[in-house]
Every structure is written in C-alpha cells, then in structure tokens.
C-alpha cells in the first residue's frame, strides 16, 4: 500500500472507498465527491502508474477561476516535482502538497489516497 503525505490528520479522519482503479485515467485526472468532516468536497485524483507515488488527491476547485476543473488539467513535472496545470489560467500546483508555484499564498488541500486491491481509498 503506497500513500501520499497529506496534511496533518485530524482525529476524526477515516479511510473511505472512493472509486475503482478502472475509473482512473493513467497520467491524467478524474474528479470525485468525498464526505469530509466539514461537509462534502470535490477532489481531483491523479494516477501515475509506475511512479514511487502512484496516486494523488488534491482539491478539484481552482482558486484562480473559481471553477471546479483541476482534474482536467495536464499532469507533468517541474524541476522534478509532479504538478498539475490548471486548464483555465494554467497555474501549476504541486501534487505532493498542493502548493501553487506561481503564487506562494495559494495552496490546494490534499488528501491521503491509496489502492486497496482494485479500490481507491481516501482518508478524509
């Protein structure tokens, strides 16, 4: 089981099933709904088969355009770190920690995700 580093977990976070491996698109993203302690949220899931960290989950909401589109951005790497580029105004966000590379003050939320067999699990 591989998982991404996430924000400091709160007491109540639990692992929940999200979707199956077949729902994912290799080297690209899909969006999904999750329940969090603060209510429902849209997450963008990225799947990088063969990489040390294969799965990432960050906010689907793009803070610059205020539209829910991050999962539809292009995945790439900038100076060795995996990133997604917003499809609207093209800012880059690091998948590890959600940090926006163009604006220090902006950061997407991140969640821990992993495979359990064919199921994709998320901690929220």
């Amino acid at each position, binding site marked *: 089981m591989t998982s991404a580093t996430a924000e400091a977990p709160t007491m109540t976070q639990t692992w929940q099933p*999200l*979707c199956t491996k077949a*729902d*994912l*698109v*290799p*080297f*690209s993203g*899909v*969006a*999904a*709904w999750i329940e969090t302690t603060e209510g429902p949220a*849209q997450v963008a*899931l990225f799947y*990088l088969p*063969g*990489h*040390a*960290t294969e799965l990432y989950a960050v906010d689907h*909401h793009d803070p610059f*355009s205020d*539209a*829910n*589109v991050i999962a*539809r*951005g*292009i*995945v*790439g*790497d*900038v*100076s*060795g*770190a*995996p*990133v997604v*580029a917003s*499809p*609207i105004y*093209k800012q*880059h966000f690091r998948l590890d920690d959600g940090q926006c590379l163009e604006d220090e003050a902006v950061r997407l939320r991140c969640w821990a995700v992993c495979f359990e067999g064919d199921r994709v699990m998320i901690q929220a």
Partner: protein
Amino acid sequence: MNTPQSELQRLIVIGNGMVGHHLVEQLIERGATEQYRVTVFGEERHRAYDRVHLSEYFGGRDAQFLAMCDADLYAEHGIELRLNEAVTALDRDAGEVVTEAGRYAYDRVVLATGSYPFVPPIPGNDRDNCLVYRTLDDLDAIRAAAETATTGVVVGGGLLGLEAANALRGLDLDTAVVEFAPRLMPMQVDTEGGELLREKIEALGVQVLTGRATQHIEDGQASFHRMVFQDDKVLETDLIVFSAGIRPRDELARDAALEMGERGGVVIDDRCLTSDPAILAIGEVALWNNSIFGLVAPGYQMAKAAADTLLGGELTFAGADMSTKLKLLGVDVGAIGDAHGNQNPGARMFRYLDEIKQEYRKLVVSSDGRKLLGAMLVGDNATYDTLMQYYSNGLELPEDPAALILPSTEGAPTLGADALPEGATICSCHNVTKGSICATLDAGATDLGAVKAETRASTGCGGCAALLKSVVDHELEARGVEVDRSICEHFAHTRQELYDIVRVEGIKTFGELIGKHGSPQTQGLGSSSAPKLGCDICKPAVASILASCFNEPITDAAHIPLQDTNDTFMANMQKNGTYSVVPRVAGGEITPDKLVVLGQVAQKYGLYTKITGGQRIDLFGAHLEELPDIWGELIAAGFETGHAYGKSLRTVKSCVGSTWCRYGVQDSVGMAIRLEHRYKGLRSPHKLKFAVSGCTRECAEAQSKDVGVIATEHGWNLYVCGNGGMRPRHAELFATDLDDEQLISTIDRLLMFYVRTADRLQRTSVWRENLEGGLDYLKEVVLEDSLGINDELEAQMQTVIDHYECEWAGALQDPEKLKRFRSFVNDARPDPDIIVTEERGQLRPA
C-alpha cells in the same frame, strides 16, 4: 520644468516625407519639444509613409501598413501635423510660412520637401494616362488607369523605372521599358552588366527598348497613346509612367532667394544650414558638397545632424555612401562605391561573367591591389555584404581579390562577423556600428529583438538584416550565451527538431519520445525506472506533432494525457468549467434543416447560442457529462466536429461568389467547402484560418487569413500568412491564376512545410516573418521545390487526409472513451457550483 507654450520657439517643418518624419522622431527622442513648439506641414493627405517600400502598396499593403508611425505619435508629443496643406511661400522678411489656409510665424524652418519625378519635355506628356511613380496617390492613379488598359510603358530604365515596370506587370499589363541611354540602369551598371540585365528582364516578358528618345506622344490607333521616337518608329500603349529621374522640390527656397545649386537643390553646410541660418534643409531637396542624395539613409543622417543643430549641438553631416543593393523584377543588382572605376585613376578591375547562370560581377581595386574602391553585381547579390564591408571599412583585401567574385568554391573568403572592426557600420539607415551593437549586448540585451529595439538597426530599409543577425549571433556566442531554443526542461530540442526525430524514427507515443530523447536530467520521479511525465508545454506540442505525422485519434489512450482539456473533451472550456460546442459548418453554408437541429439541441440542453466570427454557430454552457448526448444528436443530424478546440483548421470563410453574386467570377463557396473538408483535422503548430472570396471585392476577407484565396477571371490567386487577432498582418500574394488542382497542391505543400518547421504556438504570420529568406525563400521551397521535398510534403498531407475521422463520431463508438465524460466518477449528478442566470432570453454564467 515645462516652459509655457508661448515662450517656446516656433519650429516649422515643411514636408512630412521619410526624412521630415525622421527629423520629428529625432526631436521627440531628444526632448526638443521642451524648447520648440513644432508644426509640420505635409502636402500629401497621408502622414509620412515608407516610400522605399511604396511598391508593396500594389502587393496588398495599405497606407496604414506603410505609415512610419502610429497615428497619434505627433499629438502625444504636442506636435501639430497639418496634412493636406502645402506651403506656398516662405516669407523670410516677415518670418512667416504661407499656405492657402493662413500664415504661420516661425523662429526656425526645416525644408524637407523631397523631390518630384522629372517628366521629360515631350509634347503630349500631359495627356490622360500619363503618370508618375512617387506617392500613394500616384499609385492609386496608376491602378485606376490600369483597369481599362492592357499595355503600359515606363519611360526611364533606371532603378525606379524598373520598379515601376514591375508594378505594371503586377497589374497584368503587357509592359515595356523605354530608356534614352544605350543600356538599362546607366548610373549603376556598365555595358556588360546592362546587357545581362536586359536579357534577364526580357525573359520576364518585359520589352526593353534602349537608345530611344521619344519625340512626341499622340492618339494611338489600337491603343490610347502612340509614342513616336527619333527614328519615326512608334510604340502604342494605353498607359505611360514617366520615371526619368528626380528633381529637388526647391521652389520655396528659390522664391525666397536662398542660395541654390546650379542644377537645383538648396545649398546646405555640414550642419544642414542653408544660406539663411534660421532655415535648414534635409533629404532629397538638400544639396551638400554639390551632391543630391537620392537615398533614404543619407537623408536620415541629415535629419540627425539637423536635430542636433536645432538643439545647439555640433554633430555634422559628412556625406554618405551611395552604394545600393536591389532586387528589381526579381533580378539582383548591386553597386558599391566607384562601381564604374572612373573616379579613381589607376584603379584596376576584375570581372567575372557567367552567361549560363547570367551573373556578372566586377571589382574596382586600388592600384596596389589592397583596397576595394567599388564593385558592381548583376544577377546575384550574395557577395554584396562582404564587399560592402571591405569597401566601407577600408579593410585590406585578400591576396587574390578575384576570389571574392569567383563562384563560391571551397574556402571562398567570406568575411565573417568577427573580422569586422568595431567601427564597421552595420546599419547605414540608422548609423549603427558593430561597436554600438556590442555595447548594447554588454548592457544586457540578450537577443536580436532587444538589439533592434535599442539601436533601431535594420528597422529602416532592412537591407542590413542578414548582416545584423550574423553579428548579433556571433557576438552572443562570443559572450558564451548559448541561444537556448529548447522547448522546455524536458527536451533539449526545438519543436522542429522533435518533429524531425518523430518522423525519422517513426516514434508514435510521447512515452517513447521522452524515453529516448528526453533531457538526461529529466529522470523519473522517485525511481529512475519510472516513466517521465513531461509538462503542459511539451505534451500538447508533441501531441500535435504526432497527430500531424500519423493522425491517430487524439482520444486514444496513449494520447489522452497529452492534451489540453479542450482536446481531451473535444470542446472549449469556458470560465465556469462548462464547455462550448462548435460543429463544423464548412464554408459557412448550412441547410435550413441543420439550422433547425442546432436550435433544437440548444433548446433541449439550455445552451447559449451565438454566431461566431468564423461563420458558424457556437453553443455555450454544456456540462461535461452532457457532451456525448449533445454530440450524439448533432452527428445523427449530419454534423461533425468543428475542431474549435484544436490547434488545427478552424474555418474556411466564404462569400457567395459566382453562384449568387453578380460580380463573382468563380464558385467561392464550392472551393471553400472543398478546402475545409480537405484540411479539417490537420493538427498544426497553431490554429489555421482560411477564406475564399469570389472576386477582388474580397467579401470573405481572405487577405487576413493564414491561407486566403481570391477568385480571378482565370482561376485563383493565393495569399498566405495573414493574421487577424492581436497583431494583424496582411497576407502576401504567393501565386496567381492557379487552377483548382494547382491551388490545392500548393496549399498542401505550404501547410506541411509550416507544420514541419514552425515553433509551437506560432501562427503562419509569425513563422513567415521569422523565416530566413522571407517570402522569396518560401516561394522557392513551395513553388520551385528548391529543397526537393515537395513530393514528400504532398504524400504526408495525403496520409493525414486519409486518416481523417470525426473525433466525436469515433469517441461515441467507444465506451472506454466515453467514461471520461463524467463530472464525478462516483456520482452522476452535475456540478452544483455551476450557476447560470438569464440575460436577453438566454442563459449565461451567473
């Protein structure tokens, strides 16, 4: 700081031509408006324009394009520009300049009235359709007269006469040149050179009559005019253009009793002052050291000196070189210094004549064989830049000077940029030396553009462009600057190099390309065996390259992660995350039934509907998950994807043409539809727009498109590399009177050559402007197959065409592909954050 207007000195500039304008620019640059209240009078109705490139007015450039500056430059600096107001007198006693509209007091005056074309005193020279070639209005008059003419004669076989002849030829007239002297261009070339020039020009279908003096002009029998020569021979023609030299427009100065030259021209000193120190003269009206300079570069130097004089400086005009390099009717002619070798007693000459290739070169060297005094070139100007540097910088000639003009064999001594001394003038229009270019680089400029912006080098006649580039490249290299053209951090290659790699190695996926050719530092993340990712720069670029080579569906699994969201979902993402849908409406022609379907689909899905600038209909506001259903309905009604999302052919705009329009001469709608279907789906470095007009009225605006086609009586004229958008550019005439098949094969090659060689996101206009060798080079490649690749280009286009399929039709057949069209993988409900509101009866983002 600001002096009140009333205390400023009043400076009047008479003439708003090239040189008068350059003076104003100098004054602005040097802050002279703090000291002078400047008024400029121009007799023409146009503000200053580029007379050197006047002939391009016939090639589709308009007055706006040729203008030397933005319309509001003068006003922005408080300079009054009074166009269409000729100065009729210079009243020195009153200190006033007089026009029909009034009298204007001056403290200083600059005469920049240029010259007028000399019309020989031949009886009948004032008949209708006897014209000259100097101003935009002259060209309008020639164009109007040419409409009813079939033949034209240019009187005068000098530089401007040949240029006028080319223009007449371009207006589809049977053209002849009549020259009084025994050869063409008597000022620049000798007998051998003149003979060669004649042969070349006659081969172009222009009749050349030398040694002919016209006695009078009378009514013709078959044509409008009949010209009668000294030997009673006659020549009939509909239109005559006089181009028998220029004369200074010095009438104001003459009437004001300023000192004049014996054969005209206002006498000036080194500081451009006339005999009245309140009055200066510059440009073609000025006579310095008994010479008139009929070229723009010396005029600019005078303008510089005059500005300095007005500001109390010491800069002087020290004469100028009259060397010229031209392409007349497609024939290179160059003359450097003492080209005839008759000004330097004891000079020795070398000549080279190649009757097969029709090239003639002559060197005039000092008696000791060390210095170049002059040179003459006909048929090939390749050696001009090198010779010019030897000449103007007084460089020592090589052991065997003849090697400089012999056909280039191994080791022919070309003068590299490094061999030039610091003081070498690179751009004579703006007097930029190699030293000042180096200084700009040392001050931080890092590329050619910055050097041009800083020094203005190569922004005048443009003749120095190639030399400037080689100097800048060389100096950058010498400073250890590697001109990095890598596409991004993942590939140390340009787009063109990647394209060649893909084709040569037959690479079909991004993974394979980055695996084999990615930058070494681009190691997989975390583990070295992991595939490399690329980024949002290289991925779409490579996707486009793969598509233009193999045209596999972009929705195939291997290509999906490469695409921008628009290509992934085959629709254009809008600001709220919804998409727009633009079905193809080839040529803008649409049946009522299809229109009804568009309306019904828009109604059913609540889509905002708008007619686009590309003659089709855009449906906005579709949710991701609705796209397959919407396209299902559209495809069932016979629509196909419009590629509004792709870097590919958008639309081929058309006008109704001969089908309906009383002026149409060809079926423009039919051709537009044919072209649109042929090239739809071709992925290219940037989007492509075409248009086809049914006659010269040009209702489809073809001259603003990447590919523009205009119908003629005999077929089609093809225009290329136009652009609307951020930086509009008129398309250039590329080929004329093509039949349908020629038109298509020419476009095939042109597009594939663009696809091969352009940078990512480079429209054809920018590509063309950056293409070394310019339009001529492009013509050589595409029309004359100079690279021998045309068969390949056509075959490649055929591959793309053969592999076309409507991406939407393909995706709808494939459940795997359709899986992507879900807003959420674990919930079928739409995104609740997309909120719309109603406006003018339609929905729009709230």
